C-alpha cells in the first residue's frame, strides 16, 4: 500500500487545493498505480502533496499536456518532484530549450523510423532467437527470460555495441532505478551503478578517440566527431548522453512488454485478433502505451510565479503531471477505461509530450510490435502461472512488473 498519512501543515496559501501526503515509491500489487491515478484524477484536478519538500500534482490530461508544452514555465532541470536539486544531470533530458534541440538533432537520426527500418531485420532475428529459445520449455519468467533481454540487445545493436554486453548493463540499470524511484536504501547502489555505466563509456570513448573516421553505426564514435554549436562535444556531455540513453533504453521497453504480455495472457480474444489480423498490432501497441502507461507522473521545476490550471505556482516549486491518470482521462478519450485494441485517434502521452518527447519512441514501439508478432507466431496461447500475486515497482521511477511467470503448451 501507498503510505497515506495525515498531511503536514502547509505554511502557504494553496487556494483551497486539496492537500495529501503520499509516498509513491513503494512496490505495490500489479495495477494499483493506475487505480490510484484514476481515484486521484476523478477526485480533484489538483493536489498539493506534502511528501518531501512538497509539490503540486496535476491529474488531468489538459494540465499535464500544458505542463509538457510550456518548457519556458516548467524547466526539466529536475524531473523528479521530490528531488528539486538532483546530483545527476542527464543530457538532453534535463536541458531546456533552446539548447535542448541542438543535442536532440545529434541523436534524433539514430532512433528515427528510417534507422529503425534499417535495423529491423537484425532486431527481428534477435527477437526470434529469444522466442525460439523459450518456446520449447513451456514456461518462463517473461521479465528475465525475454523482456529484459530483447530491448537491451536491440538497443545495444542500434548504437553499435555488442549485444552480449547486455549481461553487464542489465544489473546496473536495475540498481539505478531502485534508487531513482525514491527507495532510500537504494541510493548507494544507484550511485555505484551510475559510476559503473560511466566507466564503461569512458573506456569505450578512449578506445575510439583519435580514429580519423567514426566507425559506421557506432554512436560513441559518432559523438566524438559530432559538433554542438560549431564546437566538439565535451567528454562530460558525451558521457551524460550515453549514460541516459542506456538508462532510458534498457528499462522502459521492458516494462511495457511486461504489461502488454500480461494483458495478452488474460485476453485470449485479443491474442486471437492479433493472430488473425496482424495489421492490428500497431494500434494495439499504442493502446498498451496509453492504457498501461509506465510513467506514473513526470516532474518539472517552475521557472517563475504563474497561475496555471488553478494553482498559484511560485518560482522554484516542483510540479508533477500524473501522466498515467491523464492517459485514462475520460475528458480526453472515449471509453477511456477500456482497452480498445483498434483505437485510431489515440493521442496518448506515453512517450511524454512537447520538446522532450521520448527519443526512443520509434524504436520502442517497433520492438513491442516485433515482440508480439514473433511471440504469437510460436506461442499463440499462454497464461500467467498460478501462484504469487504479481508485483510492480513503485511509481517513483517507471512502473514495471518485477516478475511475470508465463506458461504455455511446450512446442516440441
Amino acid at each position, binding site marked *: 500500500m501507498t503510505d497515506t498519512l495525515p498531511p503536514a501543515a502547509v505554511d502557504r496559501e494553496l487556494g483551497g487545493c486539496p492537500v495529501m501526503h503520499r509516498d509513491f515509491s513503494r512496490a505495490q500489487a500489479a495495477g494499483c498505480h493506475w487505480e490510484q491515478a484514476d481515484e486521484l484524477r476523478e477526485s480533484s484536478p489538483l493536489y498539493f502533496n506534502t511528501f518531501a519538500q512538497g509539490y503540486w500534482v496535476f491529474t488531468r490530461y489538459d494540465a499535464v499536456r500544458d505542463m509538457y508544452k510550456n518548457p519556458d514555465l516548467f524547466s526539466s532541470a529536475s524531473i523528479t518532484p521530490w528531488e528539486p536539486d538532483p546530483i545527476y544531470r542527464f543530457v538532453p533530458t534535463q536541458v531546456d530549450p533552446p539548447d535542448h534541440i541542438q543535442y536532440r538533432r545529434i541523436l534524433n537520426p539514430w532512433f528515427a523510423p528510417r534507422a529503425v527500418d534499417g535495423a529491423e531485420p537484425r532486431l527481428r532475428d534477435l527477437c526470434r532467437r529469444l522466442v525460439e529459445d523459450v518456446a520449447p520449455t513451456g514456461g518462463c519468467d517473461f521479465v528475465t527470460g525475454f523482456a529484459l533481454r530483447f530491448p537491451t540487445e536491440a538497443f545495444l545493436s542500434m548504437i553499435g555495441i555488442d549485444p552480449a554486453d547486455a549481461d553487464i548493463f542489465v544489473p546496473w540499470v536495475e540498481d539505478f532505478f531502485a534508487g531513482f524511484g525514491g527507495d532510500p536504501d537504494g541510493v548507494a547502489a544507484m550511485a555505484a551503478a551510475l559510476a559503473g555505466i560511466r566507466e564503461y563509456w569512458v573506456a569505450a570513448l578512449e578506445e575510439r578517440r583519435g580514429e580519423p573516421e567514426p566507425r559506421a553505426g557506432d554512436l560513441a564514435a559518432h559523438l566524438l566527431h559530432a559538433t554542438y554549436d560549431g564546437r566538439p562535444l565535451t567528454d562530460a556531455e558525451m558521457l551524460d548522453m550515453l549514460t541516459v540513453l542506456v538508462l532510458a533504453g534498457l528499462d522502459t521497453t521492458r516494462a511495457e512488454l511486461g504489461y502488454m504480455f500480461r494483458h495478452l495472457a488474460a485476453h485470449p480474444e485479443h491474442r486471437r485478433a492479433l493472430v488473425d489480423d496482424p495489421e492490428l498490432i500497431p494500434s494495439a501497441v499504442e493502446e498498451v502505451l496509453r492504457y498501461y502507461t509506465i510513467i506514473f507522473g513526470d516532474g518539472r521545476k517552475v521557472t517563475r510565479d504563474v497561475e496555471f490550471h488553478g494553482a498559484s505556482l511560485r518560482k522554484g516549486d516542483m510540479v508533477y503531471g500524473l501522466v498515467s491518470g491523464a492517459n485514462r482521462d475520460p475528458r480526453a478519450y472515449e471509453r477511456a477505461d477500456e482497452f480498445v485494441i483498434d483505437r485510431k485517434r489515440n*493521442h*496518448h502521452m506515453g*512517450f511524454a509530450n512537447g520538446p522532450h518527447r521520448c527519443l526512443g519512441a520509434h524504436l520502442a514501439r517497433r520492438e513491442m510490435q516485433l515482440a508480439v508478432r514473433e511471440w504469437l507466431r510460436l506461442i499463440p496461447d499462454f497464461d500467467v502461472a498460478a501462484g504469487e500475486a504479481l508485483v510492480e515497482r513503485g511509481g517513483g521511477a517507471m512502473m514495471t512488473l518485477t516478475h511475470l511467470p508465463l506458461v504455455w503448451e511446450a512446442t516440441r
Partner: protein
Amino acid sequence: MRLAIDGAGCMGHGRCYQVAPDLLTFDDEGYVTVRGETIDVPADQRVAAEDAAGTCPEQAIALLED
C-alpha cells in the same frame, strides 16, 4: 480538404504517418516531412487525414475545409 502541420508544435511522435501512411511520411529525424506546411488532401485520404489529426499528441495538425 487541406491539412496544415504547425511546425513549432510538431515534435516527431510519428503517430500521423503511422495512421496515414499513404498521405504522410517521415524525414531522417523522424519528423513528418511536411512540418510547417499545408497540403491538399485527396478525396480518398480524408478519413486518414482525420485520423492523423486526432492522433497527434501535440494537436499540431489542423484540417481546413475548402
